[in-house]
């Protein structure tokens, strides 16, 4: 009896769960696209909001998101990569480095809101940057650091030791072997990790809540020391704070769609890098 039912249970369980997961994905995308697409237009992405944000576009939010992501990259990439190189190429494999590695992995799992608190205490308050683009960018940079370190180290680890030895054996110094042999081989992996990390950062809201994001700004582009708008926060605002929530729903859907498109584009470029890489292997 049980034996007879097995195939039913088997396929039932597996297909049901896989189907549900796919359903979630399709439902999310379908809802966002079908309701967001009508709002999309050139004007929507190229103008500022008007009429108390009930009309107009989301240009300041797009620019803010891009600027923020760029600052995040500028902060996190060089430091993260240098730290990963230090850990993987120079640091001895002692209990200390093992603890450091474990801590870095744990930091990657720390809730993003805690980075927001830290950014507030350190950058906004401690370093007197005020709520601003730099403070928020640095906060997101911190948030991204552990991910970049982990992915870069992973990429470095995948470069076989015999490559390093080959360079040393022809008389290269350690730095030269890293620069000429290790890094070039690791670059695709590092890039993939970097892009994925940035796509995550671009979608974050919690860490910037207190460090510089604004409800509205009357100029499309800000300066480093000013507040700014971003797509995720704009979506949050339009869906919870705006006085005419119902009326601006199409704008909220449009913002959500633009945000998703931006993040997916970043992800796709990561897939593309990975694909190019695997082709060369």
């Amino acid at each position, binding site marked *: 009896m049980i034996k007879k039912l097995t195939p039913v249970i088997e396929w039932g369980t597996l297909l049901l769960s896989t189907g549900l997961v796919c359903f979630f994905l399709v439902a999310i995308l379908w809802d966002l696209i079908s309701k967001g697409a009508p709002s999309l237009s050139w004007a929507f992405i190229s103008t500022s909001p008007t009429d108390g944000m009930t009309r107009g576009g989301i240009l300041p939010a797009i620019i803010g998101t891009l600027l923020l992501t760029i600052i995040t990259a500028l902060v996190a990439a060089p430091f993260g990569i240098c730290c990963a190189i230090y850990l993987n190429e120079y640091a001895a494999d002692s209990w200390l480095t093992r603890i450091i590695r474990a801590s870095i992995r744990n930091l990657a799992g720390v809730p993003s809101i805690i980075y927001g608190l830290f950014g507030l205490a350190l950058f906004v308050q401690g370093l007197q940057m005020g709520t601003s683009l730099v403070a928020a960018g640095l906060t997101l940079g911190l948030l991204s650091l552990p991910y970049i370190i982990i992915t870069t180290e992973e990429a470095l680890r995948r470069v076989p030791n015999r490559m390093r*030895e080959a360079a040393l054996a022809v008389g290269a110094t350690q730095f030269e072997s890293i620069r000429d042999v290790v890094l070039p081989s690791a670059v695709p992996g590092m890039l993939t990790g970097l892009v994925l990390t940035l796509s995550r950062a671009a979608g974050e809201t919690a860490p910037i809540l207190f460090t510089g994001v604004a409800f509205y700004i009357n100029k499309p582009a800000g300066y480093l020391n000013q507040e700014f708008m971003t797509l995720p926060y704009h979506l949050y605002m339009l869906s919870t704070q705006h006085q005419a929530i119902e009326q601006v729903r199409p704008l909220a859907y449009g913002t959500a769609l633009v945000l998703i498109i931006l993040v997916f584009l970043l992800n796709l470029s990561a897939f593309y890098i990975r694909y190019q890489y695997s082709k060369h292997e």
Partner: protein
Amino acid sequence: MNNEHIKLSATDARLWFGKKQVLKNVNVAFPENKITALIGPSGCGKSTLLRCFNRMHDLSADARITGNFLLEDQDLYRGNLSATAVRRRIGMVFQQANPFPKSIYENINYGLKINDISKEERPGIIENALKESYIWDEVKDDLQKPATRLSGGQQQRLCIARAVALRPEVILMDEPCSALDPISTSKIEELILKLKQDYTIVIVTHNMQQAQRIADQTVFMYLGEIIEAGSTRQIFNDPQAELTGNYVQGHFG
């Protein structure tokens, strides 16, 4: 070990990985323009010993080395030779071919560039090294091809060319034929025999026939110690230690 000129030697060498002692009081000398084979069961420390001579262990933090390692009469570790300078004079070919993931040309060019050899000289040196390593004919039509697309045997010969191009004084080879088919193997053996006119060669091998075919002198290691060293003929036909005899007759290992 007669009165030949000794090119490279180690006295009282010991090496630990962490707490584990891998080389115990090793004394060994490699005569100039001779081929020395290093044999012994897996894990006895052959590769480890070889790598001491071009300071490859500098990279692994947990390796600790004592003893004297001399190239001619210069100390490899304590003198005024830097690790980079040592490696420049003592080339190495690894057990697994490890060409850079670059073109064939670039593979050899890299070492020349790094070592300040002028742009004009390089093409000549590269061609010559490839010829010396019996691989020129197979690759001359497309030097821009990625080295990783070569066959295993070709890659190994390319690595030898890379080492040779720098005109080191000694070439260390760690089982260069272990991953190769018989035809590639015989090509590389031929090459090694030719190279000995200009270089001092130390080769680790698992293959008793190979040692007998090419080595002038053979050193037998066991559990981190050198059990016996002598002319190849003597080691294989008239070993002094029982252990050596057992090993070369294939009774263990």
